[in-house]
């Protein structure tokens, strides 16, 4: 009985631990006659570990932002910081005959909604994560800081795309 408890208990406890630390779930559903569904759960700790060891494994130039982009990073940082401190509100709304785009700041998120005749896209950008994704003054992406920020976006729908019968959703649980 004790053996059975250990055999079942250890993996369950491991799973529970990993799940409690967070899971990034990619859910792809394809519609139509050959409908299929792929769900890829990636434990957040794995993603964080991969990001943390990236500087040691990946070539330095792969983790460096091109010089021409780097000169705009200061502006991006200032804008993101100002947005994070700003009150909530609808920042941009574009209404065309067939499409509507709305960008709004809601709490800690920048929410982008694109509503079209066939396609609906919803992206929630955590401002803190976006800030951490910006490179340092040397142009290097601080993967460790990014890994840390990932933990702060749990229970968030990051991306949701409806394209006809197809549906893609990425969320952090």
């Amino acid at each position, binding site marked *: 009985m004790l053996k059975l408890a250990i055999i079942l208990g250890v993996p369950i406890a491991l799973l529970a631990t990993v799940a409690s630390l967070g899971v990034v779930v990619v859910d792809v559903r394809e519609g139509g006659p050959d409908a299929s569904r792929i769900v890829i759960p990636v434990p957040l700790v794995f993603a964080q570990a991969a990001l943390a060891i990236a500087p040691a494994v990946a070539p330095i130039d792969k983790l460096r932002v091109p010089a021409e982009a780097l*000169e*705009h990073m*200061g*502006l991006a*940082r*200032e*804008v993101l*910081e*100002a*947005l994070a*401190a*700003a*009150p*909530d*509100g*609808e*920042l*941009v*709304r*574009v*209404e*065309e*005959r067939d499409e509507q785009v709305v960008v709004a700041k809601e709490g800690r998120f920048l929410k982008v909604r694109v509503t079209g005749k066939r396609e609906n896209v919803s992206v929630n950008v955590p401002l803190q994560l976006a800030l951490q994704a910006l490179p340092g003054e040397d142009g290097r992406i601080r993967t460790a800081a990014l890994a840390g920020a990932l933990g702060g976006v749990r229970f968030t729908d990051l991306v949701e795309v409806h394209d006809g019968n197809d549906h893609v959703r990425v969320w952090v649980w």
Partner: protein
Amino acid sequence: MRKSILAGAGLLALVALSAPAAAQTGTPWLHVRVEEVKDATKVAVNLPLSVVEAVLKASPGMIEKHGRIHIGHDHGLKLADLRRVWKELAAVGDAELVSVESEDENVKVMRKGDLVQVFVDQKAKPGKDGKKGKGAEQVRVEVPTSLIDALLSGEGDEANIEAAIGELRKRRGDIVRIHDDESQVRVWIDEQNTQTPAGK
């Protein structure tokens, strides 16, 4: 029972009070609205002035660390000259500064109270066979004199953007309105975080 009703009524009152306040953020927002009739396109941009300030401050090459734009010597009018002209105009008080009347358009630049008003009325070109002409355009720009004062408070060929933003923070209402056959543009500042129907 009575307590519950009172509590419910209190909650409802709170919700009712907080609902209109939800859009009022207490901080100034810069709004831009562009409507194009031909493409049935509407663009609305609402930015807290703090974000506008961050963009202006961080724009590389354009603004120095101290929030000043260099106009430079390549342009026709140096900022130092503009500053001198503005000082002279301030002494004059309310006046029609520029008035151009031509077949195509009328332009007026006036100083009225604490505003500099620019009115441009472009006349429509006559249409063929008695049809309504096209090309009419109406531009209304209202700039507070305090904003120009602030902008020109730098030294030499520098415009003081930081001081100008400070003035914009105090400003409420329309800044620019442009109407033509195909589009409407409006730029204004208020404390709403969205463009309400009343603000359209």
